[in-house]
C-alpha cells in the first residue's frame, strides 16, 4: 500500500524542472541528428562538447550550489582567469603540477573564505561582494601577468594531451581506421564533481541544509540550522570549485590570458537556470545543470552547422533559448501553484 502512495506522489518542483530540461535536450539533440546528421551522429560530438566545456560544467555546479542556498556568485569567471594565469606563471617558473593544483585550490579557498565571511557573517548582499570579488580577480590576473602566457612545463603538456580513449564509442573513418572517442582528463574531473555534488545535495545533511536555507532562511534558522555557517559553506564550496575549474580550464587551453573565461559566470548562471535552478533559492539540481550546459552547447553547435555564420547568431539564439526556458519555467510553476490552490479548495469544500 505504501508503494502505491509512492508512485502517486507528484514530482517536486526541482525534479519537474529538471525533467523538462532533459527531455528538451534529447529532443533537440535527436532533431539535430535527424536534420544535420554528420558530426551529431558520432559520440565524439558529445565528447567534444564536454571537452570544450569541462570548466563551465564545474562552475555551473558552483552556481547551482550557491543559488540553491538563495545567493549568487559572479566571481567564478574571474577566479578561473586568476587561477589559470597564476598556475601558468607558477609552472613556467619551475613549479610542479602538484603545487599548481594546490595553488588553484588555495586561491579558491581564499576567495571562498573572504566572500563567504562577508556575505554570511557581515550580511552584505552576495551580489555586491562577489562582484567585488570578480573585479579583484580580474585585476589581479593582469597584475600577475599582463601578457598572455603559454604553458612551457613539459609534464603539464603531457597531462593536457592525455586523453581517455573509449574505443567502443568511436567511429570508423573513411579509410577504415577505428577512431576512438577521446575525452580529456578535465572532463573526468568535471563529471566526478557533478556526481559528488549530486550526492552531497541529495544525501548529506549539509546539502539538505542548503535547500532549507534557500527555501526560507528564517524558517531554517528556527529549525535549528546554523544559517550563517551554511551560507558561508555555499560560498566556500562555490569558490573552491571555481579554483578547480580554473585548473581544468588551463588543462584545456594551456594558456593564461587576462580575458580567460570572460562571461563564464553568466554562462554558468544561464546553465543553472536552464537546468531548473531558481535564483530565488531552494530549488535546483546539478544533473539538471549538467544538461543545462549541454543544451546551451548543442544550440551553439546547431547554429554553426545550420549555416547562420554571421557572428551574432550564436548569442542571439542563446538569448532566445534562455528566454524560452525561463518563460516555460514561469508558466509551469504558476500553473502548478494554481492547480494546488484549486485542489486545496476542493479539499476544503469536502
Amino acid at each position: 500500500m505504501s508503494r502505491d502512495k509512492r508512485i502517486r506522489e507528484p514530482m517536486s518542483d526541482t525534479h519537474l524542472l529538471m525533467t523538462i530540461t532533459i527531455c528538451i535536450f534529447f529532443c533537440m539533440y535527436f532533431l539535430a541528428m535527424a536534420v544535420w546528421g554528420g558530426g551529431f551522429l558520432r559520440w565524439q560530438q558529445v565528447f567534444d562538447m564536454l571537452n570544450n566545456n569541462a570548466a563551465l560544467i564545474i562552475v555551473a555546479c558552483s552556481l547551482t550550489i550557491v543559488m540553491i542556498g538563495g545567493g549568487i556568485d559572479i566571481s567564478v569567471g574571474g577566479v578561473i582567469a586568476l587561477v589559470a594565469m597564476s598556475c601558468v606563471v607558477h609552472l613556467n617558473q619551475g613549479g610542479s603540477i602538484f603545487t599548481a593544483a594546490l595553488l588553484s585550490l588555495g586561491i579558491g579557498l581564499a576567495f571562498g573564505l573572504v566572500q563567504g565571511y562577508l556575505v554570511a557573517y557581515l550580511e552584505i548582499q552576495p551580489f555586491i561582494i562577489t562582484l567585488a570579488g570578480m573585479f579583484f580577480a580580474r585585476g589581479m590576473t593582469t597584475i600577475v601577468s599582463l601578457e598572455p602566457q603559454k604553458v612551457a612545463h613539459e609534464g603539464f603538456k603531457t597531462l593536457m594531451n592525455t586523453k581517455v580513449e573509449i574505443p567502443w564509442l568511436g567511429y570508423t573513418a573513411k579509410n577504415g581506421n577505428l577512431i576512438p572517442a577521446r575525452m580529456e582528463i578535465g572532463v573526468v574531473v568535471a563529471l566526478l564533481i557533478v556526481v559528488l555534488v549530486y550526492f552531497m545535495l541529495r544525501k548529506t545533511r549539509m546539502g539538505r541544509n542548503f535547500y532549507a536555507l534557500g527555501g526560507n532562511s528564517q524558517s531554517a534558522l528556527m529549525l535549528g540550522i546554523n544559517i550563517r555557517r551554511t551560507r558561508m559553506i555555499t560560498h566556500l564550496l562555490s569558490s573552491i570549485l571555481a579554483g578547480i575549474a580554473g585548473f581544468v580550464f588551463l588543462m584545456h587551453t594551456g594558456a593564461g590570458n587576462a580575458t580567460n573565461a570572460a562571461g563564464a559566470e553568466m554562462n554558468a548562471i544561464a546553465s543553472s537556470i536552464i537546468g531548473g535552478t531558481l535564483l530565488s533559492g531552494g530549488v535546483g539540481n546539478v544533473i539538471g545543470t549538467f544538461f543545462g550546459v549541454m543544451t546551451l552547447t548543442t544550440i551553439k553547435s546547431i547554429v554553426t552547422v545550420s549555416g547562420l555564420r554571421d557572428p551574432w547568431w550564436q548569442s542571439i539564439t542563446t538569448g532566445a533559448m534562455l528566454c524560452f526556458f525561463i518563460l516555460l519555467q514561469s508558466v509551469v510553476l504558476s500553473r502548478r501553484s494554481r492547480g494546488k490552490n484549486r485542489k486545496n479548495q476542493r479539499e476544503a469544500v469536502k
Partner: protein
Amino acid sequence: MKRNFLSRYSQLLVPLVAVLLIVVFNLIRDPGFFSIEVTQNNTGNTVLSGNLISILNGASELAVLAMGMTLVTAACGGQDISVGALAAIAGSVFVKVLKSGGEITGLSILLAFLACCAVAVIFGAFNGTLVAVFRIQPMIATLVLYTCGRSVAYWINGGATPTLTSPLITALGGFIPGIPVPTPILLVIVTGILFALTFRFTSLGIYTQSVGVNQRAARLNGINTVGIKLLTFMILGACCAISGVMAVSRLSLINHETILLEIEMDAILAVAIGGNALGGGKFRMSGSIIGAYAIQALTTTLYAMKVPSTAIKAYKALVIILIVVIGSPVVKQAFGRLTARWRAGKGGVQA
C-alpha cells in the same frame, strides 16, 4: 527636529563619507588635485579642465543609468544587468539612423535620438514584461538581453563599427562652442531635472516604493503593480538610450563590444553604495547619483596614481569591499554597541 533630519538623511551617510574620504585622500596626496583650469581646446573653445571636471564628465553615463537602476531596484527588488547591452543597442540605432539620413543636422540628431529612445524603451518593456507579467526575477529576465544585446547591436549595423563625422556629434560628446562645461555633464543635469520634475508632479515615488515593499498591499490599495514595474523598466530603457548616445558621441563611433562594457555592474554598485537596499523598497535617488560619482572619483584617483588601467579593478574591488563593510548592518550594530558601552563606561567613571 535634528534627529528627524538625521534619520531622514542617514542613508546618504555612507556614499557621502566615501566621497569625502576620496577627496581628503587626494587633497593630502596632491593639494592641486581638484584645481580647475580654464584652457583652450584644439577646436579653439574656452573650456574647463582638471580632475574634478573629468570626474564629473566621466561619470555621466553611469549617473544616468544609476538613476534608472534605482527605480527598477526599488519597484522590482532586483537589478537589470542588461543596461550596457541595451545602451549598445540604442547607440547602434542612433548611428544607423544618422548614417542612413545623409547629412547630420540638429534635426536629424533629434530624430535619431527619439528613434533610439523608442527602441530602448521597447526593449525595456520587454524586460519589464518578463519581470512584471511572468514574475521572473529581474536578474534572470535581463540575462536574456545581457546575453544577446551586444550581438543585436552588431547585427543592427550589419557587422560593422561605423563612425560618425560631424562637428555636432563632437559637440554632443565634448563641448558646445561657447560653453565651457562638457556637454555630457549638462545632459546629466537635464536628466536629473527631468527626474525631479517627475517626482514632483507625479506619485512615481510613493507608487514604486509601495510596490517594492509590499506588492500585495499595493494592489489592494488600487495600484497597478504590473504597470508600475513595466514603467520603471521603460524609464530605465530611456536612461540607457541617453547614456548610449553620450558614449557614442564621445568617440564618434559605435563599437558594440566595448561601448559601456560592464557598466551594469558599476550602475548596480552605485545604487548599493548610495545606501539603497538591492532587495527593493525605499530608495533615495540622490544616494545613487553620489554613488556613481564616488565610483568615478575612485577610478580617476587611481589613474592619477599611475595605477595601470587593467589593474584598476583590483583596487576598486578593495575600496568597494571597504565601503560595504562599513555600511553593513552588522558592523553598524557592533559599532553602536561599542559606542554605547564606551559612553556607559564614561558615565560610570563620572558617577
